């Protein structure tokens, strides 16, 4: 099994979710995170004090998949989340020994 982790721009999340659903991904886990990288943040002003906010909001998606599907999933995410502008994010794949569905105790493929 593989774990595909994607960090993307918030407003792209919805398209990614739809694309993955169409492809057949049955579930995923999502969280709000902050990104630091080439994309620069913004400046805020409060009573004349200027603050540079370096972090930018991102959406982090975790998908456990079969080895077979991993590349497709990555491809779909990259295709859908791409805007071409700095800060589009990263996707990485890492190995998973096993995954279990809590409700049933089913393992691996049948757990997804």
């Amino acid at each position, binding site marked *: 099994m593989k774990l595909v982790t994607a960090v993307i721009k*918030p407003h792209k999340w*919805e398209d990614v*979710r739809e694309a993955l659903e169409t492809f057949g991904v049955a579930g995923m886990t999502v969280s709000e995170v902050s990104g630091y990288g080439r994309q620069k943040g*913004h400046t805020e002003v409060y009573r004349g004090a200027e603050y540079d906010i370096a972090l930018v*909001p991102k959406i982090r998606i975790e998908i456990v998949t079969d080895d077979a599907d991993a590349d497709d999933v990555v491809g779909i995410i990259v295709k859908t989340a791409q805007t071409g502008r700095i800060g589009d994010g990263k996707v990485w794949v890492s190995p998973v020994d096993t995954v279990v569905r809590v409700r049933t105790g089913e393992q691996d493929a049948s757990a997804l």
Partner: protein
Amino acid sequence: MDGYYAFMLVATAFVLMMTVPALALFYGGMSRSKSVLNMMMMSFIAAAIVGILYVAVGWSMGFGGEGTFFANPFELFWLDGVTTDNYIYVMFQMTFAIITAALISGAVADRLKFSAWVVFLPLWAIIVYFPMAHMVFGCTDDSLICGRIGAQDYAGGTAVHINAGVAALVLVVLLGKRIGWPKDQMRPHNLTLTMLGAGMLWLGWYGFNVGSIVFGTTFDEDPDAFLAQFYSETGRTFANTTLATFAAILGWLLIERLLHGKATSLGAASGIVAGLVAITPAAGAVDIGGAVAIGAIAGAVCAWAVSLKYRLGYDDSLDVVGVHLVGGIIGTILIGLFSTSSGAGGIDGLFYGGGLGSLGDQTLGVLVAVAYSGILTAVIALAIKYTIGLRLDEEDEVNGIDLAEHGETAYDLHSGSSGGGSSLLAASTSTSSEGVKA
């Protein structure tokens, strides 16, 4: 007297504001974020239902004539025969009915079906509050508490606070504890709302207490006496209301500090309300020394009383019993000690050489209020429990009553790290639906 009248216009608006939004905020802030809207709604709907009902029969039952418990509901039905230049006095009394009913809601947080509350309100107003208002405010010789017993209650220690407190206690006993109480954490979700609410309640309370002046003569009969009373009595009630509250804040924080090592902001907000509750019946009867004493005692005792529910095992969620019942009793009884003949009632309490007479009357008044409200509230609550039911479905309670009963959640704020506050997941989710359906 147009000055007095002008004050009543403002005072009435103030007291209505005490329920919407002040009490709703005070209670809402103490609720959990999944039930704050329902808590606020209970106050808002109380205003609408009780308010219209008051104009229909409430005024008549309270001020429509003689009666030990209540006057003829149809004497002044829908203000028939009441001239518009008296409307403001009707409105003022109406706001008392509204807030008394709304006060109860704090006890039933998170688990009372909204439909049950909507049915409870009119029944409780007609069967419990309107009569109680006659017994205390609609003072005729035969009205029970004010007339027959002759207990002093300037602005509603019995009719409002003891009444609401007892009703709250009865209701929670019949309703049962919240799932997970007291094991789970059920901490206030937003104390800034609670402190805001406490502050607004305090402001409104000046309308509540100071506006409760009852004149010994009409302006037309004796303008000078009328105005003299206006100046001297409102000065007294304003000062007493203020000083008792100061003392209660200090009293509460002191006890908290001793019992738990910390003086908390929720304690300060609670002390404000405890002090205002306790001085409500006594505002006209005592001097500033008595006001400070009553406030300090109420603050200190209530700070301890709010823990009783853990010992006795009733889930009075936002401490309506610990603050309003206990505070109301303290204020009403202490009049028996601190009442001064120079005050509005002209009665000397024990500490002012008046003997035990007043103390007895006050105690009797309290007992009548507790008994009347307790018994009849129980009847109403049981009737609802065994018909439409009181309690929310378990899973709905866990997921939050706001969602279950109102289809809403209070906040959509996104985490602190979300920079520009772009809507992130919250926003996207909706698109994951077929979007908005309207």
